[in-house]
């Protein structure tokens, strides 16, 4: 793609994305008094990650069977409180192992 066509797109993408991230974090500095809003903001991270993980994770490997193996391993390890890295690596290994099993069948 030519640079003259490319650069305006990248500038718009980067600017919009940055403004969305920057404005709330920089402008809203007063402590929040509403108990509802405080509770809402406490729950938001978990709600966002839940919606981003399911069902998308089932399509992340190109085969639902290998994804299911990865999810099962990740859920068990995460439930037991293992670290982010341990869970992520174990999930990848489980997917690789499941691919190996499927290839042998």
């Amino acid at each position: 793609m030519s640079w003259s066509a490319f650069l305006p797109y990248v500038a718009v993408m980067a600017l919009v994305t940055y403004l969305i991230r920057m404005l709330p974090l920089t402008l809203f500095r007063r402590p929040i008094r509403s108990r509802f809003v405080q509770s809402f903001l406490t729950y938001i991270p978990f709600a966002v990650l839940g919606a981003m993980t399911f069902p998308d994770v089932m399509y992340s490997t190109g085969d639902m069977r290998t994804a299911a193996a990865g999810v099962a391993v990740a859920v068990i390890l995460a439930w037991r409180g293992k670290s982010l890295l341990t869970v992520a690596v174990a999930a990848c290994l489980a997917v690789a192992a499941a691919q190996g099993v499927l290839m042998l069948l």
Partner: protein
Amino acid sequence: MNAEFRKGIRHGIPIALGYLSVSFAFGMKAVGDGLTWLQAVLISATNLTSAGQMAGLPLMLGGASLYEMALTQLTINLRYGLMGLSLGRKLDDSMGTLQRLIFSFANTDEIFAVASSQPGKVGKHYLYGLMLTPFLGWTLGTLLGGVAGTVLPAFVRSALGIAIYGMFLAIILPPAREKKPIRAVVALSVALSLCFHYLPGLNQVSSGFVIIICAVAAAAAGAALFPVEEEGQA
């Protein structure tokens, strides 16, 4: 080196590894679709967002208007606004306006999630460390994917695809196990997300909006049913 900075870097490593695989896929696709590797890297280095970049790619290649590009990015990335509001409460006094302007650039889903899960307030040294490793991972992964994407065997690439979700699960499950309100919020959000993916009509809504709708509805229901006792306690 400052101990908090080192801790941030350490906490950023799993994020960076997850990003490496996701951005590898982005770089591979971008170059396959007609960008140069330098253009792909430039997008990653200035945007640092997976869903927005993936959505922007076909728009620029298809010659869409800049207005459409802006609106698409706004919709998909609006969730960062909510995260910024939420994270604002966690920042300590070392995070002045300049520090906030800098950190805002890197407030991604994963960095936000890890920063939010820290006990108490977080400061600039920790956050600078926490944004550094993932930024490097994201940019480097795009470079590798753009330059050498076709070299890596398919089974390795598909196994890497799940890394980022394994990380998400490691963030949400331990607190969900301990606290019923969090369990309920996650369950509701996931249930809504499944509806938006599979029910006819609802599955027409764009992915950026789906995340916003599910998260806002589930967090609002959680706030109404289980108000937290004091600031930052979940």
